[in-house]
Structures are given as structure tokens and as C-alpha cells.
């Protein structure tokens, strides 16, 4: 038993990240090249319009802002720590993070209920969607749990988790932080890598085709043969 656990940490936190990243880049590009048609947000708003709003909007705003926080913690950990040096600012950041996490969770749960409860929408739900929903629920759920029961995450993430993630980027995984971390943290990190790995096989690919060119293109589009 101990031997399994002994190997589990390196497997999950030193091997899985690379498997995930490799799969992500290879399969996303492959899917874009071979099956461009399948790149779609696969909206089901047409089939169910009301509950769609109450799920879609809180989930997306919540998850996007929380993700932005994670990325900032990764890119500018020092600034985050400096910001958190003042208790009031730390509390503000923590509460904001928790609120956004809860927003995402509420949105996700209502989306899941919508998917289960609306027969029209159930028809257009693939096995990949169900797996993705479960994984996202685990991810957002564990994130909210961490925010509540392992507080000051904005600080310890910047101080300890960010270096671990950078060690992966630098191809020299340092498992010091993660081995000592509580189970919920391990769950959250593993979930993140799984999401990255499954990314190209799910509807998550719509994130990559977010239509930013719209913001600066001319209104009309004309295509010529020549």
C-alpha cells in the first residue's frame, strides 16, 4: 500500500502534467486540422432559453475571473504577496475569490440540473459532456472547499503552488510543496491536469476559438474566389 502511495505523488504531479500538456497540444492541433467542423461551443440555448441564462452567465463569469486569478498568481506571485501583506487587502481578495468561486459553482450546478432536467438538452449531451461536467464539478467544488477550509489561498498559492507549477514548466518538477499539501489541494491539482488532458476531447475547445477578431474587424465580410 505504501509503495503505491509512494509512487502516486510522482505519477500525479510529475508525470501526469506532462502527459496532460502533451495530449493537450498534440490533440488540440490535430483536432483543429482534421476536424475543424467540430470546433463549436455547441450551444443549447436554442433548445432551452430560460434556465440557460441562470446557469451560463454566473458560471462563465465566475470561472473566467477565478482562472484569471490563478494565472495572475502564476505570473506575478510577488505582487500578489505584496498586495496580501495588508490584512484588509488580503481579506478583500479572499472574499472576492470565494464569491466568484461560489458564482461558478452555482452556475455549474444549475447547468448540470438543466442538462439532467430538460429532455431536449439531454439529447444533445454526449458522454464527453457528462465526464466534463463531473470533472468541472469536482474542480470548482474542491476550489470552493479550499477557499473555505484552507484560507489565505491567494497567498499560499502565490508562495508555494506557483513555484511548483513553474518547476513543471522548467521541466524540473519539484514535488516538495505538493507532497506535503492536504488531500483537497492534491485533488484540485490533479483535477486541473485531467481537465487539461481532456481538453481536446471535449467541448472545452471552444475557449480556443473565442472570436476576438470581431472586436476590430469591419462589419461586412466578402469572399472572392480569386
Amino acid at each position: 500500500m505504501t509503495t503505491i502511495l509512494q509512487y502516486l505523488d510522482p505519477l500525479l504531479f510529475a508525470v501526469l502534467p506532462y502527459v496532460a500538456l502533451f495530449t493537450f497540444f498534440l490533440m488540440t492541433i490535430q483536432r483543429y486540422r482534421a476536424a475543424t467542423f467540430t470546433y463549436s461551443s455547441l450551444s443549447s440555448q436554442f433548445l432551452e432559453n430560460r434556465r440557460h441564462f441562470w446557469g451560463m452567465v454566473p458560471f462563465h463569469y465566475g470561472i473566467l475571473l477565478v482562472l484569471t486569478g490563478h494565472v495572475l498568481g502564476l505570473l506575478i506571485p510577488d505582487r500578489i504577496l505584496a498586495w496580501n501583506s495588508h490584512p484588509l487587502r488580503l481579506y478583500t481578495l479572499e472574499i472576492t475569490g470565494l464569491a466568484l468561486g461560489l458564482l461558478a459553482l452555482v452556475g455549474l450546478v444549475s447547468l448540470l440540473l438543466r442538462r439532467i432536467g430538460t429532455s431536449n438538452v439531454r439529447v444533445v449531451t454526449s458522454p464527453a459532456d457528462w465526464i466534463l461536467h463531473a470533472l468541472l464539478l469536482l474542480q470548482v467544488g474542491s476550489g470552493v472547499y479550499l477557499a473555505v477550509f484552507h484560507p489565505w489561498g491567494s497567498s499560499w498559492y502565490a508562495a508555494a503552488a506557483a513555484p511548483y507549477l513553474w518547476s513543471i514548466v522548467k521541466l524540473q518538477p519539484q514535488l516538495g510543496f505538493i507532497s506535503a499539501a492536504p488531500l483537497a489541494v492534491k485533488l484540485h491539482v490533479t483535477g486541473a491536469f485531467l481537465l487539461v488532458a481532456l481538453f481536446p476531447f471535449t467541448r472545452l475547445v471552444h475557449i480556443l476559438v473565442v472570436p476576438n477578431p470581431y472586436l476590430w474587424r469591419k462589419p461586412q465580410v466578402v469572399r472572392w474566389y480569386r
Partner: protein
Amino acid sequence: MDVRSQISMVFHLDKCLGCHTCSIACKNLWTDRKGTEYMWWNNVETKPGTGYPTCWEDQQKYQGGWEKNGKLKLRSTGKAKIVANIFHNPHMPSMDDYYEPWTYDYQNLFNAPEGPDQPIARPVSKVTGEYIEIESGPNWDDDLGGSPLYARNDPNLEGLSEAERQQLFAIERLVFFYFPRICNHCLNPACVAACPSGALYKRGEDGIVLVDQKRCRAWRACVAACPYKKVFYNWFTGKSEKCILCFPRVETGQAPACFHSCVGRIRYLGVLLYDAERIEEAANAAGNELIDAQRSLILDPFDPEVIRAAERKGLPESTIEAAQKSPVYQFVKVWKIALPPHLEFRTLPMLFYVPPMSPVLANRQNDVLDHASTDLFHDIEEARVPMKFLGNLLGVGNETKLRYALRKQKAVRWYRRAITVGDVDLQTAQKMLREADCTAEEAEGIFRMTALCPAEERFVIPPSHREQAAEMFGDVMDRKQGTGFGFLSAPRRGL
């Protein structure tokens, strides 16, 4: 002058008999796939009526098209709005605004156990496969001219007096006409301007508006933006689809399926040359000048200067020739009897309608059936479909252009009647022609194109110059049940 060519259309409403053959031809050819069952790229509506999807003309409800507040802006979306609305489009119609497609459980007719009653085939949803109660359909208000549920909710009734409404709906006097619709392949398409992904585009060579199935990401902005609701969302593949004006047919010199199959021969297809430089200016014109502004975009294909400019732009000679023979040019620009639908949405639709004549109001003076009047065109004004209604539909709320078109049609009728039947005198007919601003040649032209309308004059399709079309080197005639052209993978829904 930036001369471009547009394949455009005229529908002669006076000839439409409401048989839906066009809709069926289109359905069989293009929208019999999963996810497209509810789409009617071509549909025929009864007017007055609410149409399909329900009350599509009501932009308070759907927020389609452009609005002019100084600058021209899309009602439903924009660069700022799209960021906020991309997760949930507040103006997206849902299946409830259309209908849930269904089939019938025919097996039950054979498999039902013996019993005292006849077995029935219950309706089954084509979305969920479950039994459903049918609540509406694509032509649910077909022929329901006076119905309080449908006809009385027609958005075009706005501004009509109570008497005019009564005249439309009174039993035994009620009247309706048919209004077939396809995509208008607009010059200033709202769907194209709304698409965040840039998947929708207008083809430069012939102006057909298409959705690039590989670039569509299901942001749904096109569905909301099109004021005619002629872009549909395929709920299965997660892609928007719309009328493609049967471009594989047009490119091979055949009329689109709905045109080809039209029993009443109400449909005309031809090239219009237009000045692309002035599109924005025309779309921005004041409401009462919109029709003239759009007409002024259309260039005279016989004008040597236009021909030179077209050649400079690289338009093939065959296209210019087709433009000269175009029936649409005659209807819209020369005769001026075809008008665009709801130009006030400012998309500059390139499908034009010849307004329908309707029966005259009888029983007007104290129960005496008397139609005598010194005004030869009195029955245009006293037609059962009020001019105001037609004006809302085809005249940007104004009746002048409609009156002109109807008077001309009426004059042509009298003129031809004087010639062929002889029970009205030619002098009166000629006087009517003069009053309707119509020469005898013009009248003969209108008569020929309306009554005789040989296929080769109705459909003047320019050669597509396949040699220039890189797109066509692939397999053009993909296979049935496929989605899109130019790629051969099956339309599998993404994971």
C-alpha cells in the same frame, strides 16, 4: 464606382397560390437532416398572419436588423455587447418561437393489439423521440386570414384604423394573400455583420450569403441579428445554417429548387449590377428615401460607363450580358413594380416582391353593389387588403411606391383585356396606362413577364466561370445528408 454583381430575386405575389411546393422542394434537398428538421429556408406565410417564426417582423420582440441612431448599428449586438452577451444571447429565439419538429409513430398502426378502436399514430418529437402534443408548426396559420390568434397579431397591422382592420377580418369579406420567403441575400446583411467568428460572408462574385460551417462556433449572433429570421441554428451540429440560394445549382446554370419547382411561376432570378461603394450611404438613407436609395445602388447594365467600370473590376462579359437580360432589373428598376420587404430593417434585401392585387370591397353604399367611379383606379384604393398594410410590409410604412406599382399592374390588366377580350375600350385602357406612368411597350413587357414568363426569361443565370473558382476544384456536389460543401467529412457533432 465599385461595380459588383448580385444574383437577386423577384417574387410576384399576385401569382402565388400558396401551395408550398417551393418549401417542400427546399426541404427535400437541403433540410431533411437531423437538427435541421425545423428549418424552413423557404417558407410560405399567409398575410395577414404572424409568420414563421411567430411574429418575426416584430423587432421589439426579436431585436433583429439595424437601427439608425445617427450611425447605423445592429439592434441585437455590437462590439461591446458581444463581450457581455456571448455566454447567453438575450435576443436568441428558442425552439418555442418555431416549433418542435415531429414525426408519427406509424408502427403503431400495424403493431397495435386488437381493440374496439382504430389504432392511431401518435406524434413523436424529432428532437427527443418522446411522444409530444403538437402545439404549432411552420405554417400553422396557413389560410387563417381572419383568425384572432394569428392574423390579428400581424405586426404590419400597426397604424391601421379600426375600419381597415374590420375590412380585413369581417367574415365573408376577409382576405389574405401568400408571402413566400427565402433569405434575401442582403447587400448589408445583419447576420454577416453580427457573426463574432466571421463565419458568415457574402460571395463577391454573385452576392450569395453563406455560413462557413468550419468557422461557425455557435455564438448564435446571426440568428438574433437577422430581422427576417432566415438564419437557423442547427441544434444538433451546433452550427448555423441558412438558405444557400442553391448555389451548386446556380453555378451549373440551374434555377434554385424553390424557383424551379414553383407552380405559379411567381419567381424570377437574375443579375443586378450595383455600386458597392455606396452601400453604406444607401443603408443610412432617411426612412422615406430608403427605397429610392436602394434603387439608386442598382446600376444600368446598358450604360457604357457602367460597363466600362464593370470590366475594370474584372466582371466577366457574360455577367454583364446576363445583367442586361435580367428580369429582376426590369421589375425593380425599369418598371418599378417590385419592392423589397421591410427595407426599414436596413439590410438592403435583394429579394423584391410585386405587391398583390386583392378583390374590391363590395357592399359599400347602402347594400348596393356599385363599383362605378370616375377614378379608374378606385379599386386599388378600395382593395380589401388596405394599402396601409402593404405599405408596412413592402413600402417602409409609405404607400406611394405601392400605389405606383399596383396602379401600373392594374393598367396593364386593362390594357391587355382591351386587346385580347375587347370588352373594355382601348381608349380608356390607354388613358389608364398614361395615368399609371406606363408605356405600351412597358405594358407588353410586364404582361409577357407576368403571364407568359418562359423559363429562360424568368431565370437568367450567368455562367459561374468555374475556371476561376478555386472552391470548386473540390467535390462540389457533395453527397446528400452532408453539411457544407468542399469538405467530405460527415457532419458529426463535436464532442
